[in-house]
């Protein structure tokens, strides 16, 4: 069951520097100085976040506009939580 209340944010674009390498995404997170190497579907999900905040439900809709989605909303939330654990996204319940 997707929680409609939680909003997911990312910092402004200049908080990170990105490069693609071999089908993976390299991300340098300036505030922490940590380099992350992230694989699909994290980059696709992350690129749709913004500073205004977005619910998982809204993200699901946006993703399904662009991709054939496989899996369910639980998976999406787990990936969003993973992004938050990495420090690349924030959430607000």
């Amino acid at each position, binding site marked *: 069951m997707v929680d409609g209340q939680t909003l997911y944010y990312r910092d402004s674009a200049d908080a990170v*520097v990105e*490069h693609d*390498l071999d089908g993976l995404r390299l991300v340098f997170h300036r505030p922490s100085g940590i380099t992350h190497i992230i694989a699909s579907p994290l980059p696709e999900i992350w690129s749709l976040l913004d500073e205004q905040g977005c619910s998982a439900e809204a993200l699901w809709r946006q993703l399904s506009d662009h991709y054939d989605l496989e899996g369910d909303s639980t998976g999406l939330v787990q990936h969003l939580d993973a992004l938050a654990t990495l420090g690349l996204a924030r959430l607000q319940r």
Partner: protein
Amino acid sequence: MKHSCMLSIGPASFRIGSPWRAPIDALRELYAAYPPVKSGIADYTVRLEPAGTGRRWFRPSIAIAGDHMLADAAPMALRHGLLAAEMGMNLQMALGWRRHLLIHASSAEKDGQALIMTGESGSGKSTLAAMLGECGWRFMGDEFALIDLVTGSIHSFPRLVSLKNAAIDVMRGIVKAPARFGPLMEATPKGDIAHLVPPADAILHMRDPAEPALLLFPRFGFASELRGVSKGEAFVRLTQASTNYVALGEAGFHALHHFVDTVPAMALDYANGEEALAAIDQLWEVRS
């Protein structure tokens, strides 16, 4: 300190101080062909210190100290003083250098381009670089490859080559001038060690950078095998092999990405030096 000398190696300079004379004399002799330190001011200080009270005189042993230190390092015997000084200089670079991205690797240059070899101890990267230096390549270093943070060029850090165990005999078979070898130090914490002075052209051109053209992961003592290493794999391996990737932050990120994106990487297993040199010749010929 009572005895000291100053050394200029590639872009870095060191002042080595010691209460004992022998290690400083050895350094002066082996680094005789190197240029003097301009301005008389060194980037780093290395101090060989008596380890514990009274150790200046009684069963003297050395604690390696300097601008950058490791607190729990074990002391070394005085007869290994030259090795202690070299390790001290390596430590200053590893812990303190910020002007380039530092990779624990050997390197050699040919036609303005550099071959970089990285891997664990025993991979043979030092010996291979020394051998290349004796057959038409310019030796650039056996410990650190320095990657320019802006241009991506490789800069040379040609300190004395540290030969271990069997590699000593290998190089004695190739380099005939005995004056190029430092004393044999037996039973050091790293085994038997002897230092080899790099060839004259390596010292003469130590300020000349080179464009990286090939990254090699050599592995000695296996049946010969060659495989390509993909960019993502090379990136992560190099973060493990770099002593300052994390400390350099964003500049390190860009430099390493650029390096991995533009320099092909291969893994080479080999059973003996000649085999490796032949494979390197082949790879060099088809490099893009």
